[in-house]
Each structure stands twice: as structure tokens, then as C-alpha cells.
């Protein structure tokens, strides 16, 4: 898949199997956030294909492009993007409400996420009254609570003080253990990948340059060993961003 944004050209192929986490690191401006925005559907890819399991989200050659709403993706944005006019609780409940779940049930679910993240007492506050770290946890809760099929988490632990960070990382590890879709997580911090037993790739100027040796890296595809897939074909919910470049590399 490739996408061009100003001077930046992102060109890469990724394959993240269902139930596994891929951590992306890289310097500022390497294109990590742009990559996530493209996968989420906020930016149109200029070439290639994005696919989740059997669902083609985007295929430039065939003119397919699912709107963001239909991608069933949970995004935790680096700049958080909480809705200023809604309380923390209603921010977290927003995804469920959008899918037609009634207010009470959506709020109850939101409250339990906020409680897990140590934010129960702040549920009635609006984002303007939250600290950066508190807003960060609300943003993470909102992404996890929207019943996504896959997750894009952009620096979900930034802006947290050490105590909150430890707690949030625990919750994230537990939540992702239960989560059976693919997860892409942008982070600079090495311990995150370790705690999530995630693979790790590094982006530089729009390309993947180095890959954790634990990963099987071939044909410019990054893929992780995936034992679960054989046991359970339903779990074939991998996300793929395939670069159909000049060399006719069709990914998988």
C-alpha cells in the first residue's frame, strides 16, 4: 500500500494476523500517524490495498474504498480528539451509541471501561477539565469500547505519569489478550512491545526498515507467526496493507 502526503511517501506491505499486536516505531515524521490515518480511511491510499480478513477496505486498482464508518476500526489518536461537548463517559459511549445501542447500556459499558482505567470518578467531566494523561485514558477507553474488529493505537501511553502508565499498560495488556482482531500500535517505548509480546517494526521515511528478528520477514511482507489461525479459521481477521508495486508483489 502506498500513500503520498506532501513530501512524504509511504510505501509498505504489512500483514498482521488476527489476535496479534504489531508495534511500529520510528522517528517523528516517519509516517506512522499517516499510515494509521490511511488504514482508518481518513486519507485515501494512492496505490495498493487494505484488507481485513476477507473484507477489502480499500483497493485502489479496483476503485474500492470503504468509508471510515464501515471499517469497524477502533482508533486511539495521538492527539486524542475527544469530543469537547461530551463528558468522558459519553465520549467512551459514543461508538456504541453510533451503532444504535441504547443510552443506558452504552453508558454502563463506558463506565466499566473508565473504571478499569482508574477514571470512574471523572466520568462526568468534559475533556477540557481533564489532564493530558486523563484524556489519554479516555481516548484509549473510547477506542477499546467501540466493539472494533481491529485496533489502531497511536502512542496510547504517551502523556501518562508513571503510576497511571503502569495501570493503563496492565489494562491494555489484558484488553488485548481478550481481543481477537489485529492491532497496530505506534509507540516509542520498548517495554510496550515486550509486555504485549508484540512484534516490532521500525519505519523510516515511509518505509519499514528494520524488523524484530522474531518476525518472519520475507518478500517485504511483515508477518507474524500465527498459530491460532490454523486452529480457528474464523480468526482469519488479519489486516493487510499490500503494496502492489512495480515488481508485481501481490502480498500473500
Amino acid at each position, binding site marked *: 500500500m502506498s500513500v503520498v502526503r506532501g513530501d512524504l511517501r509511504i510505501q509498505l506491505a504489512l500483514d498482521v494476523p488476527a489476535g496479534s499486536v504489531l508495534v511500529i516505531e520510528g522517528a517523528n515524521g516517519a509516517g506512522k500517524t499517516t499510515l494509521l*490515518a490511511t488504514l*482508518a*480511511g*481518513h486519507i485515501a491510499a494512492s496505490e495498493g490495498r487494505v484488507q481485513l480478513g476477507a473484507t477489502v477496505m480499500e483497493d485502489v486498482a479496483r476503485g474500492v474504498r470503504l*468509508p*471510515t*464508518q464501515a*471499517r*469497524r*476500526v*477502533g*482508533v486511539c*489518536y495521538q*492527539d486524542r*480528539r475527544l*469530543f*469537547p*461537548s*461530551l463528558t468522558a463517559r459519553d465520549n467512551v459511549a*459514543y*461508538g456504541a451509541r*453510533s*451503532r444504535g445501542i441504547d443510552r443506558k447500556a452504552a453508558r454502563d459499558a463506558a463506565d466499566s471501561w473508565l473504571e478499569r482505567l482508574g477514571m470512574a470518578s471523572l466520568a462526568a467531566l468534559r475533556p477540557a477539565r481533564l489532564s493530558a494523561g486523563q484524556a489519554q485514558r479516555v481516548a484509549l477507553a*473510547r477506542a477499546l469500547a*467501540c466493539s472494533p474488529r481491529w485496533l489502531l493505537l497511536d502512542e496510547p501511553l504517551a502523556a501518562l505519569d508513571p503510576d497511571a502508565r503502569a495501570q493503563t499498560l496492565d489494562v491494555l495488556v489484558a484488553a488485548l489478550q481478550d481481543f481477537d482482531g489485529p492491532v497496530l500500535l505506534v509507540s516509542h517505548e520498548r517495554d510496550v512491545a515486550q509486555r504485549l509480546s508484540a512484534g516490532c517494526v521500525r519505519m523510516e521515511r515511509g518505509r519499514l526498515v528494520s524488523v524484530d528478528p522474531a518476525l518472519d520477514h520475507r518478500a517485504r511482507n511483515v508477518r507474524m507467526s500465527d498459530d491460532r489461525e490454523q486452529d480457528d479459521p474464523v480468526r482469519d481477521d488479519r489486516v493487510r496493507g499490500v503494496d502492489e508495486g512495480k515488481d508485481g508483489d501481490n502480498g500473500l
Partner: protein
Amino acid sequence: MRLRRGDGGEGAAPSVFAVLAFVGAAFLVLPLAALVARAPWTRAAALLADADLRSAIVLSLGVATGATVLAAFFGLPLAWWLSRGRFPLRGALRALVTLPMVLPPVVAGVALLAAFGRRGLLGGALEAGGLTLPFTTAAAVLAAAFVSAPFFVRSAEAGLSAVDPALEAAAASLGASRWRIMRTVTLPEARRSLTAGLVLCWARALGEFGATITFAGNVRGTTRTLPLAVFSALQRDPDLAVLLGVLMLGLSLAVLVALRGEEVRP
């Protein structure tokens, strides 16, 4: 350390400015003070009890509110289109939509006659449908809407343009439909500009005179709104005109208070 204005006096105005500023302020304030000073307070109760006057007040509030509702109903989608749409001649459309703000109101009235008058462009079609606009309250509402809607459209457009698209993208990622994004993110984010636009629009509609008297006429109880009543009273009973003036001054003050702190960008 940052210097505060006035610390050393270097930014002080030349003294002639003080004189000019005083004259300018006096010119703006004096007529209003005179209006209040000249008001026939002793006759006020008797004058205000007049049935014609009460009907003018009710008519004015109704016409201004009707014009504002029209402006909001069609103006919000228009503002949306101007702020989000990508189409050729968007700048030209924006200028055309703004034009009634600077057009002499009497010209607006003539233009409305040319379009909707009995012998106007659409007058024949309207008449065939059993609709004659001139000299009706509906015409007064249209005249007020024509001159006041741009205040709402421009203010709403500015507000909609200022909404962070990243928030709307986030709402979309959470599965929200376009309507839901608009209702829960865009409009709440723009609400200050939208309210300011509504208040400005209503105030302008309330004060509308030229287009109304030209297009809708000055028919007591049907199109004689407060400004027209002031104009009519001036010939018969200047005391009444002054009193009505004070009344409208009070309404204008109320509008200013309502807009307090809002960024007003007509």
C-alpha cells in the same frame, strides 16, 4: 518581561486624537441619549395601551422570528455547502449571498418585487397557484429574511469552517453516520457562531424597514412592523415615534448583551 501598554507612555496617542475621539463618541451616543431624554414617559402607559401599537409589536416579533427560522432552515445547509463544498465559483456564490448585507434595503425591496411581485419574474406562476405576496405578512417575512439571512449564513459558515475536521474523522471512526457527526460534533462545536448568527439575523430582521415598505407595503396590522410604525407615527404623533424608538433601542441593547463575548463576524 513584556511591556504592558501604557507602561512608559510611548504608545500614547497624539493629543489631537483625544479631541477627535471625544467628538466621535459624542456623535454616536448623543442621539441615543436624546431619544431617551425626549421620551414622553408620562404618556407612555397610554400610548403603549394602543391596540395598533401592540399589533405592531407582536407583528414585528413574529416577522423577525419567522425570517430567522427561514434563514436558519435554508441558511445552515447553505453555510455548510459554502464551508465544506468544493465547487467552482464558490467565492462568487459567497459574495452573491453576502450582497444583501450591503445592498440598500430599498433596492432589496425592488428586487423582491421584480422576482415575486404580481408582474415579477415568478409573480405569474405564484398568482396561478393562488398566491399573491405583496402587501401580505408573508411578504414582510420574505423581505426581512432577504436582508437578514446573510448575517446568519456568514456567521454559521465561519463557525463551521473553524470546526476541527479531526474530530469529525474521529466520530466517523466510531461508526457515526454523517447526520450523527453533524448533530453530535459539528453543530455543538460551531454553536457559538450559530447562536451569534441567529441573534444578529433576528436583530437585523427586527429593524428591517426599506425592503419591507417597498415589497410588503405599510399595511396596518399586516405588514406594519415596528420600524414602519415609527415612520408612520412620526407624521402623526412624534411622541409615539420617540417612545417606539426607545422601545427598539432597548431591544437592540438586549441583543448586544446576548452577543456579549461572542465573536461577531457579520
